[in-house]
């Protein structure tokens, strides 16, 4: 089966998932992103007119202020023209099909679509459908993938830990419904992290998750032992209604990240979270605001990584 993300020369043409991408492509993006981060240590993002004259359409079928804003900032740092489309309030509510909406936008001469949709596979469908010169970036499709989030997480890990090949990484929380977790797992294993752990109650783990190359833990205290990186996932309120969990309180007691549980990890372990956080549900405030948390730097790095993705796609011919 042809890899829908790569062109015939093996270069990145769409970014739809971290699954199926060779490690050199992931490292390329991380290296490019490094170049965009200001070297003087203040962590500011440079403005580089690489995408001057290009149009980037943010097509969000599912609401998101944070991701859309970082894509917009990233595009503008590259001097691209940005158009934001909040589809929920427009044509699809009038009955227009997804592909009709996409066709109309193609006719407006976009160079790149950044797409977020509530259904798994939406980005693949759009990528299959658009004209060959248009690039598609998946900003999150259902439970399936959120590749730019995973890439910024990898960038963050490399920034603080330097190497991947000697790390123990734990992903904690609702993996069943998480596109972030799936993309993180593929990126971590591709980049050579030797031990990826998942920590969750059985109701929040997808079946056969170990086939993705992870070690499964139901006991968070066991799972966090000697870990270098803790990747927390958000717990949505709907999980209690769906009979997956009894209460946020019990979840916090057994699966919430507290100082006490964090102490079981390595002393220099870093704590990450894709945001937005539910304080007191999956993470204690003292940890979120504590010295081991790198949650805010993640956001800054996210701009550089998205700039790297966009410039990589635009550069490939």
């Amino acid at each position, binding site marked *: 089966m042809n890899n829908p993300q790569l062109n015939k020369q093996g270069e990145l043409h769409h970014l739809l998932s971290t699954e199926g991408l060779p490690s050199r492509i992931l490292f390329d993006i991380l290296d490019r992103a490094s170049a965009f981060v200001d070297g003087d240590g203040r962590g500011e993002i440079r403005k580089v007119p690489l995408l001057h004259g290009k149009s980037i359409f943010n097509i969000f079928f599912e609401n998101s202020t944070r991701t859309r804003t970082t894509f917009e900032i990233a595009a503008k740092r590259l001097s691209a023209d940005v158009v934001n489309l909040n589809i929920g309030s427009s044509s699809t509510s009038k009955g227009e099909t997804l592909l009709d909406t996409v066709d109309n936008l193609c006719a407006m001469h976009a160079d790149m679509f950044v797409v977020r949709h509530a*259904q*798994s596979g939406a980005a693949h469908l759009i990528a299959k459908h658009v004209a060959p010169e248009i690039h598609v970036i998946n900003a999150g499709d259902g439970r399936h993938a959120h590749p730019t989030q995973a890439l910024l997480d990898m960038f963050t890990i490399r920034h603080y830990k330097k190497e991947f090949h000697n790390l123990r990484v734990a992903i904690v929380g609702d993996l069943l419904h998480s596109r972030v977790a*799936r993309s993180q797992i593929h990126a971590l294993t591709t980049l050579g992290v030797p031990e990826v752990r998942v920590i969750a109650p059985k109701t929040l783990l997808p079946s*056969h998750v170990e*086939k993705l190359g992870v070690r499964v833990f139901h006991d968070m205290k066991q799972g966090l032992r000697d870990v270098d990186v803790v990747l927390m996932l958000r717990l949505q309120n709907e999980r209690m209604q769906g009979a997956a969990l009894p209460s946020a309180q019990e979840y916090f007691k057994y699966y919430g990240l507290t100082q006490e549980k964090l102490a079981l990890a390595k002393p220099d372990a870093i704590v990450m979270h894709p945001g937005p956080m539910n304080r007191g549900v999956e993470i204690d405030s003292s940890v979120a605001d504590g010295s081991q948390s790198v949650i805010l730097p993640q956001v800054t790095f996210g701009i550089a990584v998205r700039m790297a993705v966009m410039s990589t796609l635009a550069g490939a011919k």
Partner: protein
Amino acid sequence: MNIQIKNGRLIDPKNNIDAVQDVYVAAGKVLAISKAPSGFKADKIIDASGLVVIPGLIDLAARLREPGYEYKATLESEMSAAVAGGITSLACPPDTDPVLDEPGLVEMLKHRARALSQAHVYPVGALTYGLKGTELTEMAELVDAGCVAFSQADAALTDTRVLMRAMQYAATFGFGVWLRPQDSFLARNGVAHDGEVATRLGLPAIPVCAESIALSTMLQLARVTGVRLHICRISSAEGVALIRAAKKEGLLVSCDVSMNHIHLSEMDIGFFDSNCNLIPPLRHQRDRDALRAGLQEGVIDAICSNHSPVDDDAKQLPFAEAEAGATGLELLLPLVLKWAQQDKRTLAEAIAKVTVNAAHIMNIDAGHLSPGAAADVCIFDPECYWKVEAAALKSQGKNTPFLDMELQGKVRYTLVNGQLVYQNT
């Protein structure tokens, strides 16, 4: 019209025939096999040299989309697809709009189908009104109008008391009840098999136990009520095992499988190919292998197309939003042949799965070419390869996982009641 089908390899599983023998047709019926009856003068001679002559195929599940879903397909288009596929009898499920739960609707459908003079259409009536699973339909009246059995199609029937009563009532008259085993709670919102592929793709999933739990319930109730139970579209190894045990016990149960499920697995979804969005879902390769073993053993009696034409717009959506189903009338024969060839089964054994066995399940006298039988015949070229493309299909549904693939086995002639209704030479 007197027809002589000459020099074809005649395969009639019911009568144990697999030999080069002529078939003589007159007044819509098979007159004789092998030797011309005295005084027989053929008005038409079909030269079947190099071709295989079999009873017309019998398809246990073909959605014709009428009444109600004419934008997906019509009787005209689907009936012509059926005979192009060598299918001369088909059973259509009751999930039309309105549902086939009134004798008047059944009569109208039969009348429309008869007027087209193509394949015989045998409606399967709704077991409950509107398929809602609460009130029984007038089963005796529906059989009088032409129904051959009763089913819930893909609608849930969660009230086990209603299910038991429905089976008891059907058993009173000796009517068959056809059910697809799926626990609606466990399957809710699921679109793919609960396995590695659904996990990777982030698709809501249906575990195997959704089938095995419902199937256990159905088999137990069949034991209690004595109803003639037919299990539709078995999809898992666990399901096959349950049927095997039930048959061993002597329960009155039969079973069919969809042609897609004996060839495909969850892996074929690939990058979210919505043509592989099927009900039941495509499961693990081990399940597929168990289905094939079940066919070989006879645990699974018949193969059907589960023909469900879907318009392009309804398929060109993200996987979970796309409408489930695959077109299939024209692929049934080549896919049955492909199974036979791969698993080294005889042609007779394979053809039985879509002729005599299917007829037995439907309780009709068909699927064989004994003298006196209706002259429903399929003549095909077993060697000919053809490409499955939209233009090649007569069905309005172009939605099949086999799109752009080459299949072997092409129908050349189809006769219904001794009339040549399809020719492709």
